[in-house]
Structures are given as C-alpha cells and as structure tokens.
C-alpha cells in the first residue's frame, strides 16, 4: 500500500477528483437497487409530473415514476455501453494499429487510409448510419460507438508500436527467431498499454456522451429502460410543466462525463509526464 500513501494526491489533483467522481458513478451503478428509493419501473399515474418533494427528491416523470431512481439506474446503462464500446474500440483499434505498424508497407497504407476515412465522418452521423443498419437497441449502440472509436485507438496503437519497434530489441528478438505473434504480445503490447489507458478513459467519457445523444434522438436505449438520453428526450416534451425532467438527468450525465474526462487528463499527467504541457 506504500504506493498509495507515497502517491502525491494533491499534485495529481485532476486524477484525484476524476477517480472520486468515476468512483461515485460506478458505486451508484452497482448499488442502484439498494440506494434508489423506488424501482425505476413502478409507476403511479395519479402521481404524474410531481415537482421535487420530500418523498420524490427529484420529482416524478410523465408516468409518475421516481426521477431520482431512474437517474441512478440510468448510470447502469451508461457504464455498460461505455465499457462495451470502449473495449470494442480498444481491441479492434489495437489489433488494426499494431498489425499496420508491425507489417507496414501496403497493409499499413490501406488500414490507415481506412482509419483516416472513418475519422473524417462526424461521430454521431456514423453512429446513426450504423444504427440504421444494425437497428436501434442498446447493444447495437454499443457496437456502433465502439466502431467509431476504432480509428482513434488504431492510430494510437500504431504510433506507439512504431516507436517501440524502433528500439533495437525488436531487431534482436527477430534475429533470435521469435515468431511474430510472440514478439507482438511480449515485446510490443506492454508499452502500448500506457497511452491506451489514457485514451480509454477519455473514450469512456465520449462513449457515455454519444450513447445519451443517440438515446436523445430515440435511437439508443429504448423506453421504458431508463437512460439519461431518453429521459432528457421525454423531458423536452414537458419543458413548461416539468422542467426538472430536463435538468436532473442532464446533471448526472454531465457529472459522469466530467469524471471520466478528469480521469483521462489526470492519468495522462501522471503516466506520460512529457505529454504534460
């Protein structure tokens, strides 16, 4: 434990706040059934659109469901989507990036041109088009967002791999007759991890943002599943009578995205000092 005690929490302020926020969100997601006052699904039509009150801290929605509980449960979907999407992005991206760098030549050119092309699409447009073909559901949202992340991670993995390959020991390993795959896994993978970790945190934030945007457009998580995106979408319809429907879920979404951004920035500061400005 001496690492934690020795670690200078103040100097890495960003990281500390980041970890705290992300920690709260994950804990909320895991203990949602315990900590939320009501189930996100049970409704009471007579209690429709109630303002925040003692028994409903964040008020009720258009079917009388408790907004606080739904906001807490919505964190589950966001974390799930972010987890799957980022892993799709990381795995897909790393494979493509490392292969492109390792084999170079034509494969590198083709793969990277493709990545560049995917990069030039606005993310949401690509997500929408992918959702069009996959169909609108949470799982498809995850895959679509994951695919959007692949170019970013591919570019990163390729850059780090090229850098790693320049080191002599790769030549040495190859001369010793190590097979391509062993070299990739043992030599190159370790030092690709650090920058990927940083990038993954920021990608997490972006995944949560993208998923909620898709749900806001009615394409991601479908009602009655609680997700910040579709809660905000419903809120839009009751702006005049029930403004809290549009504020509270948005606050939680902002809070979660901020947490992951800070985590990313903090990690970058700590792990790659020379990247620090």
């Amino acid at each position, binding site marked *: 434990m001496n690492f934690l005690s020795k670690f200078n929490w103040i100097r890495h302020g960003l990281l500390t706040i980041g970890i705290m926020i992300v920690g709260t969100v994950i804990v909320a997601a895991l203990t949602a059934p315990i900590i939320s006052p009501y189930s996100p*699904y*049970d*409704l009471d*039509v*007579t209690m*429709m659109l109630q303002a925040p009150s003692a028994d409903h801290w964040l008020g009720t929605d*258009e*079917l*009388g*469901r408790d907004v606080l509980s739904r906001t807490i449960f919505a964190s589950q979907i966001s974390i799930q989507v972010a987890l799957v999407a980022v892993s799709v992005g990381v795995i897909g991206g790393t494979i493509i990036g490392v292969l492109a760098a390792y084999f170079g030549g034509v494969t590198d050119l083709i793969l990277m041109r493709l990545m560049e092309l995917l990069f030039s699409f606005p993310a949401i447009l690509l997500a929408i088009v992918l959702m069009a073909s996959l*169909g*609108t*559901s949470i799982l498809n949202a995850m895959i679509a967002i994951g695919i959007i992340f692949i170019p970013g991670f591919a570019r990163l993995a390729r850059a780090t791999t090229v850098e790693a390959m320049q080191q002599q020991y790769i030549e040495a390993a190859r001369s010793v007759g190590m097979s391509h795959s062993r070299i990739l896994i043992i030599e190159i993978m370790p030092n690709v991890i650090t920058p990927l970790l940083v990038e993954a945190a920021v990608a997490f934030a972006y995944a949560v943002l993208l998923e909620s945007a898709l749900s806001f457009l*009615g*394409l991601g998580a*479908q*009602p*009655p599943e609680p997700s910040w995106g579709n809660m905000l*979408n*419903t809120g*839009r*319809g*009751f*702006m*005049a*009578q029930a403004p809290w429907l549009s504020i509270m879920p948005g606050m939680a979404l902002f809070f979660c995205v901020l947490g992951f951004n800070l985590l990313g920035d903090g990690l970058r500061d700590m792990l790659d000092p020379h990247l620090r400005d």
Partner: protein
Amino acid sequence: MSKRENDQSNFANLNRRHFLGGTATTALMVASLGVAVDGFTSSALSAPKRGGVLKAAFAADPAGFDPVRGPSGMSHVVIEQVYSTLMALDADAKPYPELAESFQMSDDGLQYTFKLRSGVKFHNGDELTAEDVKFSFDRLRAKDSGYSYTAQVETIDSVDVVDKLTVKFKLSKVTGPFLVYMAFPGSSIVPKKLVESGHDLNAKPIGSGPFKFVSYEPRSAIKFERNENYFQEGKPFFDAMEYRIIPDITALTNAVASGEVNFSNEIPAKDWASIKANPALATQTLEGSRYYWVIPNNTKKPLDNPKVRQAIGLAVDRSAIVAGAFFGQATAIRGGVIPKWNWGYADINYFGEKSEVAKAKALLAEAGFPNGFETSITMASSFPPMMAMAPIIQANLAAIGIKAKIDSMEVPRYWDEIWGPSKFDMTAMYWLSPLADPDDFVTNNYKRGMAVNVQKSGSPELDAILDAAKQATTQDARKELYKKMQQMSLDEMGIIPLVNGHLLIAHSKKLQGYVPMRTGFLKTLKDSWFEG
C-alpha cells in the same frame, strides 16, 4: 415518448362508408350531438365574411395528391380540399349530396343514379361531366391501379354515362356504406382530359374543390388559394390556406400557442391543458374515431385460450391508461369498439372502470394458469401513447401474475419483423376510421384474412355476421347485427379494446362557424370564416 407523430397518419387505412339511405342534412346543422364544444358561438347569428388566410398545423408529410394513390391521412386532408366528390359527409359523417344534385337508389339497392350539378368547372377550366365520373371510378377499379381501398369499389360492376350530367352505378352486391364510399377522398372526381394527357396529379392536383393547389414544400408547407368559381356560391370564405408541417409535437403546440398558425386538430394530449388555458385560442374536443387495442397473438400458447385473453382484458386499468397515456383526453371502452356517438354503438358493460383483478385471476385459474405465465409486449417506439401505456399494462398484468417483458423497436423494423409476420406475444396498435361507418370500425380488425388482423383471430360465425351487417338494407337491421357482433367479439376477445381517442382542436378566436368532423377530416373548413 419520442417526438415523431408523423407515422400515425400515414399508417391509417382510411375508407369511407356510411349508413345507407340517410336523409340529406344541411351542412350547417348546429352541433347538438353531445359534442362538448366550448367557446363555439352558434354560427347562424353573425353573417360570414370573406378574407383571411387559414394556417393549419400538422405533424406529417403527405404522400402524394393523386386520389388513386393517397395512402396517408395527410394526403386525404389535402385531396378533400382540392377535389370534390359525388357525396360529402357532414360533421357526424352522414352523407349529403355535393357534386350530385340528387340521387336515386333502385329498390333492390343494386343501382344508384346520380344527377350532377351543371356548370361545375375544374380548376383548369374544363367542365365536370359524367364522363369524368366514369373515368375516375374506372381508374380506381383498374387491376394495376395500386389503389389501397379496393374494398370500397370491388362491389361496383359498372359505371355508365346516361347523359352529360347523369351517371349510373351498377353494383354486384348490396353495399350498405356505398354512399359513404362516394364521399371518401379516394372517390374524388378527376379531370379525364387532363389526366389522359399525362398530367401527374400526384405532384400537381387539379380538381373542382373549394381550394386550388398552389405548392408543396416537403416537410414544411402546402399552400392553397381560393377557387373563385367553386360551385357553392360565396364559398369558401378564406382567401388562401396553408398547411404547415411541424413534425415535433411540442413545437406544434408552441406554433399554435404563439399564433404562428391559427388552427390545428392535432394538439398533443400532453399540452391540452396549457392550450385550453390560452386566452387567444378557442378549443373544441370531441370523441373521435381513433381507438387503441391490445393484440394478443391468438396462435401462441397460452394466448390462444379466450379465457386468458378475457382475463388480460379485465386486468387492464383503462382509467390509468386514459390518465397516463392520454392525459385524460380519451374515453375508456367498456365493451364494443364502436364509439357512443355512432349509431352502431352497442351499450355493453363488460370491462370495469379500473382493473378487475379478482375476475381476471378467476378466469386465469379456469384456463389452467392460476399463477400466471411469462410473456412479452412488443411496441413500436415512435408512437408516444403506445410507449406510455406499455408500462401501465405491464403493471396491470403483474397484478394478476402475468410477467410481461416490454421491448420496443422503431417503426419500420416493427412493421417488418413484428407486425407483418405476426411475430409477437402481445403488441398494441390503434385504428383510425375516417368513415365512421360501423363496418369500418370492425371488419378490418375482426374479419379473418384481413391485412390488419395480425392476431389471426376470428371465426366463421363472426365473419358471417360482419358480411350480413354490411349488406343489411336498413340501419336498424345493421344496428342489431353490429350489437350481436360486438357481444360475440367480447366472448372471443380476439383483440382487447382499450380506449377511444379524442380529437383535440384549437383555433384562433377569430375563426367562426367551424364545425369539427368526428373523422378528423377538414371538409367543413370551407364553411368557416374569420371574424374581423
């Protein structure tokens, strides 16, 4: 609740039928039919004034303006302004002669002869004659016409021109709602010479109706101008009309509230309270002809057992659906699907106001499922009322032991994967009957083999009653048969009726003399005017 309402109108199958032999009623009959109309001053007092532009707000885009190819509700609301039909429907969907000055029906009910008004001109100046009438209907009856409402014209054997202003229809079978069919936008009279010269009515409609078509800008507006030589003297009163297309329902409410538009009959239920409270607006609401129902898949165990379906029907809390999904703007259906205002109404009290858990549980036990079963409800995600009622139904079913999972998908996939191939345990849908003829309320859903009967319910006996009711000669006979049919439908419970939606209409206080139509059509706009 998604913001797209535009699917609901281009989905509805609109066909027009009315009770045979209704006496002609004047269009301006003051509403005395139990219509909860507030802020509506009786029109007979102040004389109508010319001028002004009516701007109406709608949620969906039209799909073409050729009567033979108008599948969506939004198309019909345009077609009925530009073309005219032999008959027309008044506020309560009773047919009265429009293009036809008079009509005779043969005793055996198989021949109708219409005497046309003389001097009626199309918008391009051609004179409207019997030739045009024959051409219009032959066009609908042609094999490859692609007409969506062939059911209305399949009983027509032939259409003969007797003389320039007289045309005779010969029918193969007695068709109760024939006159109502004659008032349906699909049965509009088109200019024969013009269409034969290759003019595309779909892009630029030319008819003899009260308004001339000016332009259509996709997803934004359809513009009309007054038809100076409309055959009804002095009408229409507006100089021009504009249909504004606002897909987002909240934006539609804001447009009406802000005065950007001065009329709409598609006010979303969620905003009805705020619109009613708006001093600048006059509001009218009446029970319409759009009813919602739950569809249990009659081929799937255990939903194939009528007792199980009845249990579900009894378990549903219709008052909660009215409040939660319609914000109070709907009427719970207590028995048959034909609404109270229609002559085909059968006063049956089968369903309770609230959910009847005890009765439902008993029925379930009888059916052999004392502690319920697992099932699923699949909904189309861009219909706000469906998405709102799904959790309510889920809760009601849970109360009697049925665990129902809700899943939803966006409309296009829903049609293809769920609706078309009937791949669902339970789903829900709504039906808009523009003809307000009892037949139109029931046949499409209850008769076997119909495109809409996706739950595969029905029986030979039910089909027999439906056909008999359609072909009975007198209204009383049809009324009796429809009563029997509705009772039978409740025993079978092929589909589970829920609620009947209300038409929510709001317009500027300056608009006078507007009598809303139950069917949601806007033919009576030509009789209204702007006061000062």
